[in-house]
């Protein structure tokens, strides 16, 4: 099971927090900051698996008895954002890496050249995309087209004229500007990293 999906930026500001088990808000914040310290110190060349932060480390007695504990933290770093998934050992590490990739690609399709600001001002959409992919800690859908289509269809039901999407004028007028690269590219490899179609998801 997936225990949590987190997105935060290079300074540790959360952009999306989704916990699939109910924990206290303060603990959430502590966990985020612990993971951020871990992830922020990693060189770009390091692998995408994090050791467990102190908060998640098993006590020796629990280690034997329980199998439901989160055992892996997988992250990817795109431009200014870190995408984190915490999961237990029934999930595949490499698969989750791809899942992050799928998530980012879906966002990219929906926002067209997604950047951090899109996510800030449309965090509700962010949640919707995630809900189409992961429900209650289980993966429901991994097909990009289906996910994007569902989100778009649901948006039409709202009949809201995409008020949540700021037009380009307001976007450029926003205080700190678009200092981030407009297109989030996975470091070096763009979207053809480990998660590219032919590499891992050859089946589809």
């Amino acid at each position: 099971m997936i225990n949590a999906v987190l997105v935060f930026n290079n300074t540790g500001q959360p952009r999306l927090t989704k916990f699939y088990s109910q924990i206290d808000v303060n603990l959430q914040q502590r966990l985020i900051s612990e993971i951020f310290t871990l992830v922020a110190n990693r060189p770009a060349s390091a692998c995408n698996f994090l050791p467990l932060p102190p908060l998640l480390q098993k006590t020796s007695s629990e280690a034997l008895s329980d199998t439901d504990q989160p055992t892996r933290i997988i992250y990817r770093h795109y431009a200014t954002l870190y995408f984190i998934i915490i999961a237990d050992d029934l999930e595949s590490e490499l698969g989750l890496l791809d899942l992050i990739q799928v998530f980012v690609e879906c966002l990219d399709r929906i926002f067209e050249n997604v950047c951090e600001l899109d996510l800030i001002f449309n965090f509700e959409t962010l949640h919707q995309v995630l809900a189409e992919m992961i429900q209650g800690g289980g993966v429901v859908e991994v097909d990009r087209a289906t996910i994007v289509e569902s989100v778009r269809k649901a948006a039409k039901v709202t009949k809201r004229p995409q008020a949540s999407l700021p037009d380009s004028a307001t976007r450029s007028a926003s205080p700190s500007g678009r200092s981030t690269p407009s297109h989030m590219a996975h470091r070096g490899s763009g979207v053809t990293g480990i998660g590219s179609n032919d590499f891992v998801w050859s089946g589809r």
Partner: protein
Amino acid sequence: MFEKSLYDLIRGLRAHKGNEKAYITQSLQECRNEARSNDMDIKCAAILKLIYLEMFGHSMSWASFHVLEVMSSQKFVQKRVGYLAAVQSFRLDTDVLMLATNLLKKDLSSPNQFELSLAINGLSHIVSPSLARDLTPDLIAKMNHSNPYIRKKAVLVMYKIFLQFPEALRTSFPRLRERLEDNDETVVSATVNVICELSRKNPKNYLPLAPQLFNLLTTSKNNWMTIKIIKLFASLTPLEPRLVKKLVPPISNIIKTTTAMSLLYECINGLISGGLLTHLAGTSDGEDLAILCVGKLRGFLVEGDSNLKYVALLALTKMTKTHGYLVAAEKDVILECIDDEDVSIRLRALELVVGMVDAEILQQVVGRLLRQLRPVSSDDIDTSGKDYDANEEDEENGEVELVKRTQGPAKQAVSLPDDYKDGVIRRILEMCSKDTYANMPDFEWYIDVLVQLVRYCPGEIKASGGQSLDDEDFEEAYTAGGKVDVGEEIGRELRNVAVRVKTVRRQATEAAELLIGRSSTMFPVSGGGGKRVLLAAAWIVGEYAEHLRNPNETIDSLLQSSNASLAADVVSTYVQAIPKVYSYLTSNDSIAWTLERKTTVSFLTNRVVEFLETLSSSPHLEVQERAVGFLEIFRLAKEAIAEQPANTNGVPDEGEGGMQEEYDPPLILTQAIPSLFHGFELNPVAPRAQRKVPIPDTLDLDGPINPQLAFLLSSADYDASVGDVDPTVVAADQEFEKFYYQKPVVVVETAAQRIDRAAQSAAGGEKHGMTGSYQSGEDTYLDPDIVARRKAERRERNKDDPFYIGSTGASGRTTPNPLGGEHFDIDSIPIMKLDLGDGVGLVKGEGNVRAPVPRVKVEIAGDEGDGMDDGDDGEPVGVGGLKAKGKKGKGKNILNVDSSNLVGFSLEEPEEDLLAQEEDVAKAKKEVERLRGEIARAAERVRVPTVQPIVEVPPQAQPTEVAKKKKKKKAVEEGDDGEKKKVKKKKKKEGEQGTGDQAESIPVVKKKKKKRRSSTAEAGGDAGEDAG
């Protein structure tokens, strides 16, 4: 009034950089007001803002009622916001949750698929036991929804329902099973996902699904699902070994054909964790499979992708247990990973290497690790580079390649974090000491490594471990952390080697000597940095004083006044070591007791007394106790030395000494003090050996050892206050004397009276001793300024000494044997070059000194008392600390999913009628209440002879009721603990009822259906028992 939209809030936040806190507080207050608004739009906007702020840690639990309001909005947009808020903020104990049931029921029956999916997704987060119970029927219906979009979500949410309400599993399992045949792939995938989670809790239930799953495995094109199926099978195979044979062909087929790395890896992982490889071990199939796996994993390692490397190392680590030899064959690529630039890969590789290391590669691995630990600074790199070039040639024919020359990357290694260094050192120790040094090819080398490691010890990791703490605090700091200081670990190893391996005891002792000798310059004053290695070093130096190269200097170092500031436990070891070395130096009675000798010994004794005196008022109890104890002995020795006249060869001695030609050294030196330490040789003892010693019957721990102790002590005090011989305490003195000097070797029979005086006159005696030493020209014991000069000289001399680190000069200078012992074999001293001083050096076995030795069988002493029932008890002393990897207990793990309900939950309960029963439960409760009165009355009437007509009324309701309750009871008992109270209550009722109808109702029920009758009887019986 203008309300802020979320957009405004975010912009505002960005505009208020620096004082966001105030802005947020203000915004929260606004939200509070807006949430109370009657305008749904405003309310909704407020909730949306709250969700945003919740992300930054501002709890919105207070708004849960407003969230519920928004959830029930007619507009989808608002409903969606409401559900999002619920998902993010509701907890199991949120009280409005119970109000949500109807809302969810309504949304679950919505014709709009998006509303429906919203409700399902929401439910997956907020489901509580009661919600689960009430909504299960609706969700089961949704599993057959016409739209796969709904089906997949409905299937997936069922797992969350099962977690809260396990009974639902029985009702819905047939439906769930049908979904495995669904024509939509994502639905099947979701079903597999759910079954995979369930199967981990109780795999037995899902064995019947194996054929279906197997079919999916062979036909599926969906990698994600295939991964899950393989994980699922990994949990099933331990229960059904026959599956293994079935599974091997398709899985190995996938391994061979797939291009998806994740699938490939999970296949291999599944083979390992499902025990398939273990099961097949030994067969040719199994071998082929294992070779295939290892080959693929090797591919991962050389691929160059750090993620693949990481997972491959993980898998290989698991494989070492069953196929260690195959893994070891890949050591070339694995060892490369030890030097990987990514620290997490290094750690994985390290873990793997610890598992697979053997005698052949041990030195190579340790060499690599030592290289990593070497501190990097610009000039170091140059020198070290040269060093290697120079040594490389020498080593061409050397027996072991200690340090594999690695290319560029390792050299530009960044400075490593301290905890990594710490971990590496521990790993080195772990792999070297594994299985009581089973893999150790060369102990001399190991000792050098240990000394080197002390150099590389990182500074204090935990600030709390400083020496400024008291004994208790100190101990606490270490035990609470559960981690022994890494320096202490190294010390333990050194001690272990010294004790267990007699052939290198000398080398070990010399290493300890070196550490003691240089302790003041080598370790940071602040503690840490491996300083605690001194604990073991001091012990070794004392215990094996006969192996010391230069005992005089060693005792000198031990007596440094600065030593008093070491950690308390280290000082107490020092106190213990000093008499041992002293005894070694002075006990030799073959050395003539000349004046020179006498002054030397007397001066040494004075120094010891002086040192101990400073410690005898130490705040640390252990130090003080030991110091005081030894202090008394040394005062006695001092007395004896002063008393004992020296041999006079021409030097006229005054008094009675002049009459005799020959004087022996005082007996206290030659016999009394040595006898304190020379009993049996100390052997390693298994940690639990003591338990095997039977407690003697006569052992009485409560009885006083010396019943007269109190008297003796008071008389001693009295004696002290009075001073010299006092006629009134003569009797006490005799007691006192007897108490202290029972030993046959008593030399100073009159000392009892003089003990205190001796202390007073110590100063005078010292002066005398000092002048003596000046005159004698003995250069060992000198005034402080001279000592300082001598120290410098010594340092100078040590430059050439191969045992002193920091030298770059020639190796193998022999030094004169200071002991005169005939066993001292100069050639046996290993000549090693340890380049420690500037941190450049690496341990090198000097090939030209020793011929390439094929591994010599070294006798390693095992633990004593580690006999019959060892099992895992008998772990070597030194390793113990490594194994106890206590981590800070955090109580409950925070992201833990509580699935205890599902563990061992069986599907085997009769499944018919379960649904009906659920609905009956509520009714039954009410009926129980209603019937209770009647039953009570009936029970009363039972005593009345006329039975038949009275019982006519209840049976219609009652037996049905009881049957229902019986069933329900069973169901509930399977369920969560929360229900238990209710069950108890009901039992009670049944008890009352049961005793009532046990007597009479059974014959009545005979008229009714037989089935009912039996259940009633059963229930009655049970209840009767309960009541009784």
